[in-house]
């Protein structure tokens, strides 16, 4: 097993309210680590601490052997930590293709950034079409991203993350509000990309979680209350009491 990211003892308080308390997690290559728990448990805050959008009060994040807990978000992203948001964050005013071009120019095609018209850069265009094909977005490539269906927007956001060639993918409820069919597409997509990345998956759809996850951690009131293989989590009485029992 290859540990890409090892976060230990992360904590965050807001004016006395403890949002995340002594949060530790290991993300391994080609593994999907699901993070579940009731609303307000601190899952999104935990992701924010990993991306740097939220500064941790304490704790350390080791990423490929170096401590990144002081790095700003943009540097962590450059280093290979990609993030899809709970509220889908794409460039609504751009076409799907232009969204992909931006994502590709962030890392894979940095040399394409210049005075040239990106429409005339064949390498860039080909790579974009390839990714759009992979994420089943070819048909809507010229549509405005803001006009896409919820499922297509979610796929576009993850396609953009993948375009930056990340080592870590932090997915905050990628399937929320999606139709059954879009959810199925997402599950097969995540399975198809997982080989080269370590994925942290925050998700409420338990069926999807049990289909995808190699490991599950359960959060409640800012703390991880249980962590283990899906089978053992499913049977854990503490987890059933805190979360699964409500479903």
């Amino acid at each position: 097993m290859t540990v890409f990211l090892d976060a230990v003892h992360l904590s965050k308080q807001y004016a006395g309210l403890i949002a995340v308390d002594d949060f530790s997690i290991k993300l391994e290559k080609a593994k999907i680590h699901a993070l579940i728990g009731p609303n307000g448990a601190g899952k999104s805050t935990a992701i924010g601490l990993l991306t740097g959008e939220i500064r941790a009060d304490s704790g350390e994040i080791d990423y490929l052997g170096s401590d990144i807990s002081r790095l700003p978000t943009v540097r962590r992203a450059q280093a290979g930590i990609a993030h899809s948001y709970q509220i889908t964050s794409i460039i609504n005013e751009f076409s799907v293709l232009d969204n992909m071009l931006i994502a590709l120019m962030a890392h894979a095609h940095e040399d394409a950034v210049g005075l040239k018209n990106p429409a005339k850069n064949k390498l860039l265009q080909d790579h974009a079409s390839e990714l759009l094909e992979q994420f089943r977005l070819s048909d809507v490539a010229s549509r405005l991203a803001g006009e896409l269906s919820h499922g297509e927007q979610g796929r576009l956001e993850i396609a953009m993350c993948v375009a930056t060639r990340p080592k870590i993918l932090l997915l905050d409820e990628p399937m929320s509000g999606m139709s059954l069919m879009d959810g199925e597409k997402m599950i097969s997509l995540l399975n198809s990309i997982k080989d080269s990345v370590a994925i942290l998956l925050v998700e409420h759809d338990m069926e999807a979680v049990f289909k995808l996850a190699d490991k599950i951690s359960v959060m409640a009131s800012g703390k991880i209350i249980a962590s283990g293989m899906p089978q053992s989590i499913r049977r854990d009485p503490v987890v059933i009491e805190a979360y699964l029992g409500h479903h």
Partner: protein
Amino acid sequence: MISLNRSNCVIIVTFIALLALPPVLASIGESYYISIVTKILIYALVGVSLDLIIGQAGLVSFGHAAFFGMGAYVCGVLSHHGSNGLLVFYLFPGTSNALLTWPIAVIVCMLLGLLVGIISLRTAGVYFIMITLALAQMVYFLIISIPQYGGEDGLGLYGRNELAGVDLNDDTQFYYVCLLCLVFYLAGSIKLTRSSLGLIIKAAKFNQQRLVALGISPFKYQLLIFVFSAAGAGLAGALMANLTQYVSPDYLHWNLSGKFLIIVILGGIGSLFGGFYGALILLGLEEVLSSYTDHWHFVVGVILIIMVLTSRQGFYASITGKKT
């Protein structure tokens, strides 16, 4: 090949009209108007440059007069010393060669733009408006505090600059030079907006969070467009100093920054060509109305309100049917 859609037709017709204007005016004996249209071209240049920041980067600069005025002052001061033979700041001789005064004016404005950009681009929204306004007013007070260059009275020039092969003192020739500057700057602006750099700058306007999460820090790209914008305004300032043969502190004043904003809004934010139509409308209205009434400001205000309410996308979008 340029396709003949509506917006290209509008641009081509406008361009031909501008090319044909001097001989037409001369033939009807109204050559006086050439200077007014030259002024419109110069303001259009500022409009295009300001629209780059507002329309492409989504940042409203309320200090663009600083670059316009600085360009005028650099050109004016160099020309002033070129005529009186004294050294500029006791360091180097002045000149009235346009191939020196104009590029130097542009370079100084780019450096000023770099400085203002580095400070102001750390903010956005209302704070960006306020900080560009504040920095521009600092430039204004700095310049009027130099008595050698006229202080609040401004600085008169002894004729226009010299340009090999062209007589800039001839209004028609000067007009064509200004038109050429506008066309070149517009071409550069269009190239920039259609480039991958332009795409990133626009992405930052719509969703900075996503850009940062992808690992792109928009600051340096925004700074680049800000400096390019300052260059355009600076060139316009140098042309203005030549047109009026006088450099006024009014060129630096925030009143003028506001006027530039009105030009961009009237023409259509994000359309680039709108900069020209905005300048045409505003200066045209001023020219026409001020010959009828002393209270023309009021009338202009009413017309502007009506125009903004009826055509939110600006004049360029109205005539071309193109959304920006």
